[in-house]
């Protein structure tokens, strides 16, 4: 959950794509529709009922948006007080867009170090302005704040485990949410469902949304002695190498009063303990004397689910698979997708007065989301494929990160989630440097293959 590298290079790439491949819903040539939402039947007398399953950042943002517009919202969360195993890093734009109070922030990370397989270390963060930082929070603190805000805007919070979702047969009959609360089985009828229940989403299973490949993220929380903790006061570290992860990176993130040392992988999940041992050894000097206080693991989706909208059910956040490659960032995209989905439903139902259908969800939510973020996700996927494949490429990545321009672009793209304004000349230099680094490291890599130590 750290910075994305060279995010802005996609400005060059997108100029090559003359048209973004934004899919358009198929038109019906023989229907007599005038494109206005009067197609949808009006709900006489009552407001639209929506159920949001899952009370994390995605669910809470969706519930808040829906409830604020007057829609009858029910937010389901099975364990409101659990702490999620998560990096807990959120970008600045999330603090602004979601009005997150600054007292929730545990730490402000202003420095990052990225370490290559041959221990070449590069300092990131020289280009940050004094008011810029990466906010580290505890998930339980953030989640409960967002949930209480959703409740304050009118959503009904239900602490229950949702077991399954009954799909209706006609376009106007309700969805029935079956849940268990205090050991009793209950059911609730709603018109629209937003599935925000994470990587093992039950809503996704109920609508047969298909599966996705997951990476596993494994981390240990280690309490350090004070002098070692002072080193990580506002510093996060990222380690790359075949020994710590074959296709991802390992990290040391500072949290409120301890550090989280972890790693992740997609292809060799059964070797995750070996990789964890390797990262512990790589940072052995810096965590000497530390005590492990918690061990946790969680799946992280690698790509979107095949179906993200079906009927009047939409998936958001981790349930939909909105996690970027390369950095594994998911909190901001979860919250943003929840908000956008909520706004889509509000627009399509005209503030809760009309029923909506699948086309509305696709048009207002899915198309908007894809148009806004698909190039970001595609670009990071490209970076991951190019730079995380083998040790030679990782060395090249770390070498490139030493360049100030790269650092500035990376942080700006990460913190504000927008195309950083780049200088064309510097862009060209960066592209040449990238190619140069990759070529150099490939040559050394080839030399390495023939050598025997």
């Amino acid at each position: 959950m750290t910075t994305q590298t060279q995010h802005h290079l996609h400005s060059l790439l997108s100029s090559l794509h003359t048209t973004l491949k934004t899919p358009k819903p198929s038109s019906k040539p023989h229907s007599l529709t005038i494109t206005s939402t009067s197609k949808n039947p009006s709900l006489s007398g009552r407001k639209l009922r929506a159920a949001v399953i899952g009370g994390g950042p995605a669910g809470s943002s969706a519930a808040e948006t829906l409830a604020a517009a007057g829609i009858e919202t029910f937010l389901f969360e099975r364990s409101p007080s659990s702490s999620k195993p998560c990096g807990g890093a959120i970008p600045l734009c999330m603090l602004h867009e979601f009005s997150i109070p600054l007292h929730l922030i545990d730490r402000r990370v202003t420095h990052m170090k990225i370490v290559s397989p041959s221990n070449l270390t590069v300092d990131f963060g020289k280009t940050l302005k004094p008011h810029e930082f990466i906010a580290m929070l505890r998930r339980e603190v953030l989640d409960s704040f967002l949930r209480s805000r959703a409740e304050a805007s009118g959503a009904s919070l239900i602490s229950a485990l949702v077991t399954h979702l009954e799909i209706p047969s006609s376009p106007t009959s309700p969805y029935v949410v079956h849940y268990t609360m205090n050991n009793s089985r209950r059911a609730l009828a709603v018109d629209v469902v937003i599935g925000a229940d994470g990587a093992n989403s039950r809503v996704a299973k109920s609508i047969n949304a298909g599966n996705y490949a997951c990476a596993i993220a494994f981390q240990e929380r280690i309490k350090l002695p004070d002098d070692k903790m002072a080193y990580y006061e506002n510093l996060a570290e990222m380690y790359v190498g075949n020994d710590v992860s074959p296709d991802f990176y390992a990290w040391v993130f500072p949290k409120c009063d301890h550090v989280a040392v972890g790693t992740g992988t997609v292809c060799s999940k059964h070797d995750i303990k070996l990789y964890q041992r390797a990262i512990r050894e790589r940072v052995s000097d810096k965590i000497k004397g530390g005590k492990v206080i918690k061990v946790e693991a969680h799946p992280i989706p690698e790509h979107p689910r095949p179906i993200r909208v079906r009927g009047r059910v939409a998936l958001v956040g981790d349930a939909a698979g909105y996690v970027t490659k390369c950095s594994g960032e998911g909190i901001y995209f979860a919250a943003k997708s929840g908000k956008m989905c909520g706004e889509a439903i509000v627009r399509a139902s005209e503030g809760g007065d009309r029923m909506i259908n699948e086309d509305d969800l696709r048009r207002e939510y899915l198309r908007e989301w894809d148009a806004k973020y698909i190039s970001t996700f595609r670009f990071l996927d490209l970076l991951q494929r190019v730079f995380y494949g083998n040790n030679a490429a990782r060395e090249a990545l770390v070498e490139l990160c030493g360049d100030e321009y790269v650092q500035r672009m990376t942080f700006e793209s990460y913190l504000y989630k927008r195309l950083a304004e780049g200088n064309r000349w510097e862009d060209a230099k960066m592209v040449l440097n990238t190619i140069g680094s990759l070529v150099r490291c490939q040559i050394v890599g080839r030399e390495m293959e023939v050598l025997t130590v």
Partner: protein
Amino acid sequence: MASIAITASLQRACSSPHLTKKKQLQPRSMRSLDTKQATHVVTMDVEGQKGSKIAEKLEKSALHIDGPKNAEDKLKSGTDAEPFVPKFKDERWKNGTWDLNMFVKSGKMDWDGVIVAEARRRKFLELYPEAATNQEPVLFRSSIIPWWAWLMRSHLPEAELLNGRAAMVGFFMAYFVDALTGLDVVGQTGNFICKVGLFVTVIGIILLRRTQDFDNLRKLADEATFYDKQWQASWQDHNASTSALEKERRKA
């Protein structure tokens, strides 16, 4: 009981001459006279002259238990029970970077040597990863090596190969085109189609250097579009379902 234990461990220790640490562990734990007698017993049983020589050394070290510091240090590391991880050592690697002065051969800078040395270092670290410390940071950047050194190392042999192939293909293609169409070389260079053909051939030779390159390129294309396909999957379903709906409507 103690002597049996020590005999067994000494036997194992003697048969592998490298583990000097373990041997010195045993004498430490048993300071009685039993040790001396046990070692005598072992020397008779151990096969080969080498084993007995080592056992004799053991005796001597057993006598000097309280003596040299090395024994204690090695004992400490032995009792930690951690595998010994070798550290990268090279006389030319100083303070986290290569000392370029040591790579001078007959008055000229030997960049090839630097490249090979760096490759060796990275290979070593790949096999035996080291902890990243702040006390000895790695400062070497491969960009210090000039671009022509890289080219000479890697690309020249391959460039030679590709040029040779291109020349052979070009010669025979010129011959065949002349035989088929009557255009001689001068005429061919003026013809647009021939120029296009030449361009395609050159690009083809660069891209498809070996037969496996073809498969690699195909895999690359698949991988590149895989992620995109997953994003578009939601829309594919929509198109399928709406066309199904339309068919139903027409039937009804």
